[in-house]
């Protein structure tokens, strides 16, 4: 059993050209390359003598080892120009390009592909960012709002109103949902106009975390007054957490909006890059902060947890059971 039994995004589509690329996912080094119509992933060491295959090139849908010219197809089947009767085989992975990213999983696994309900929305942008901290520590940061006054600039609450922010955590067999409701922090008028946010807006941050693979989908929108009708633009953002090694985690952020590109095309062409930049900035601030948490113990045992941390404990349990497939009670601990 391995974490790679789940589908993981490993690259953004735009990061993969016609050259093979090395990626590390869950500590495994893979080479990812494009074939004529698809994408493929193999162990990044030529089974012949161990040469990293990403140093090679792609020819006829196969990656060619730069050392002795052995070549490997998407299904792992290889051939050697000098050993025409040999039928060598490389470890291969299921690989698909979807939602603007390249995803891999072990071919023996039947794990479902994560469903993100963005079929109605407009893509704002995709981004990959590396957080230099272990998966659990990174996930913790993304499933509570108490850090938003200190870390974030746009979306979230202020230190002064944090005590008034309502938060509700709902746990099911395979998901943890967190709903937060509080006064939106003051915003520059340009940003307010950009999102059509009313003056007395309340910000709802409502997300659900699932664990095959580990990802959270955020629904972020505004109310006109504490219990008023919905107002302004809404974002739907999916964040996938791909462990690179035990100490680093890649974030794949797929950001969508309920606004369209085609109704006021000129305004949208100006606005969408701004929204994209804003999402990037906020994620970068998370990553900068998380770098200081690289050596923090993963366990939550003996931590002084507050009311916003309920989802952390629930998520750790599901992460252990669903993602890591370890029996209850295993480290990283929750009590």
């Amino acid at each position: 059993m391995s974490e790679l039994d789940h589908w993981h995004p490993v690259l953004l589509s735009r990061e993969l050209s016609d050259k093979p690329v090395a990626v590390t996912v869950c500590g495994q080094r893979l080479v990812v390359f494009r074939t004529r119509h698809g994408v493929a992933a193999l162990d990044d060491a030529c089974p012949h003598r161990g040469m990293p295959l990403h140093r090679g090139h792609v020819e006829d849908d196969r990656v060619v080892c730069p050392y002795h010219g052995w070549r490997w197809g998407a299904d792992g089947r290889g051939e050697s120009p000098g050993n025409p009767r040999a039928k060598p085989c490389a470890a291969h992975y299921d690989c698909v390009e979807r939602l603007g990213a390249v995803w891999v999983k072990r071919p023996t696994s039947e794990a479902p592909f994560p469903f993100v309900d963005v079929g109605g929305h407009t893509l704002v942008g995709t981004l990959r960012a590396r957080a230099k901290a272990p998966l659990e520590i990174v996930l913790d940061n993304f499933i509570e709002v108490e850090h938003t006054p200190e870390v974030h600039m746009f979306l979230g609450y202020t230190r002064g109103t944090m005590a008034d922010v309502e938060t509700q955590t709902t746990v099911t067999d395979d998901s943890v949902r967190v709903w937060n409701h509080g006064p939106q922090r003051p915003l520059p008028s340009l940003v307010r106009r950009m999102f059509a946010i009313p003056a007395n807006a309340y910000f709802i941050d409502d997300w659900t975390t699932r664990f095959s693979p580990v990802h959270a989908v955020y629904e972020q929108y505004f109310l006109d007054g504490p219990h008023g009708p919905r107002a302004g633009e809404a974002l739907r953002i999916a964040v996938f957490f791909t462990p690179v090694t035990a100490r680093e985690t890649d974030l794949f952020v797929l950001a969508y909006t309920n606004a369209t590109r085609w109704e006021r095309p000129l305004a949208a062409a100006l606005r969408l890059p701004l929204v994209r930049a804003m999402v990037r900035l906020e994620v970068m601030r998370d990553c900068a902060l998380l770098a200081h948490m690289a050596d923090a113990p993963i366990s939550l045992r003996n931590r002084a947890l507050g009311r916003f941390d309920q989802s952390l404990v629930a998520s750790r349990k599901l992460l252990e059971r669903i993602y890591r497939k370890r029996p209850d009670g295993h480290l990283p601990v929750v009590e």
Partner: protein
Amino acid sequence: MSREAEAVVLGAGPSGLAVGGALRMKGVSFEVLERADAPGHTWRTHYDRLHLHTVKQHSSLPGLPWPAHVPMYPSRDEVVAYLEAYARHHRIEARLGETITRVRRDGDRWAVEHTSGTTRARHVVVATGYNRVPHIPTWPGREGFAGEVIHSGAYRNGRAFKGRRALVVGAGNSGAEIALDLWESGARTALCVRGPLHVVPRDVFGIPAQVNSLRVMSRLPPRVADRLSLLMLDRVVGDLSPWGIRRPAIGPVSQVLVNKQIPLIDVGTVALIKQGHIRVVPGIARFTEAGVALDDGSALDLDLVVLATGYRPALDAFLDDAPRYTDARGYPTHFGADAPAPGLYFVGYRNPLTGALHDIAREATAIAAHIARSA
């Protein structure tokens, strides 16, 4: 029990509700009869991930725009919520649990026989839906097949089919999206495509196919529109024949106008076909115990077959003289206000490129105006 009404509307799906809304705005009194226990029944039972394939900006029913926060392609649940809000907004209280058994001429009026009695009206609007009765073709050997066979109407999601070998029959919009859903659920999925097929991405360069067709294609002569569409499809879809999907000889716009056949609106299935994750196979010759034998002589072992083979309106089940008003497949040939019998109207049996709901809204408005004039 016998009742009287100015107009009676058969069905409380989008079409029936739209006519109800349009009649309410004209001040005409009406009754709506619905066989299910809630309005919008078919939408409630569609598969989980379904979104409207047309944008909400061009899919509202008469008198009520979509809420601002709903994204451009509303989800199934958002469509249901909209239909409920629509009924509330126009105070349409459909009589539920009323199956229509017969519609007949009765003097200068129509008599509608239904579960709880007969309702008579001068105007009867048939809005029983595009999707009334699942169309299930027959194949030899079907009874001997050891796996499961369901119609797409009964498919909700792929959770139960992880690791199973699945075949979706029929490359309409639901068939293609169900194949995508099954693949995502971890099923080994094939899609059966029998005839030639145009494939149109739902959005091209960020512009919805529906907007493109409303603003550009439907304003051009069909031959020009065909040429333009094919140029665009060459660029964004390309030749799918290596995967077993052939293009029809007729262009995509003419195909809708002449054959009444809409292209496949792709929401991601084609990318999975090209990447080799979903296999396209030819038609089924017959079922075997282990699976199916295909038209090309090959065999496919299967655990599940989903028949996305469509629906029929089956109006002859209740409408006297139905063949007078319908084509060979049972679809009405008259729309808006020109059915050849006075006071008889059909709405919601077309599926144009400009969108079914868009068309329903226009038809409903025309029908209500006609009824109001003759009321």
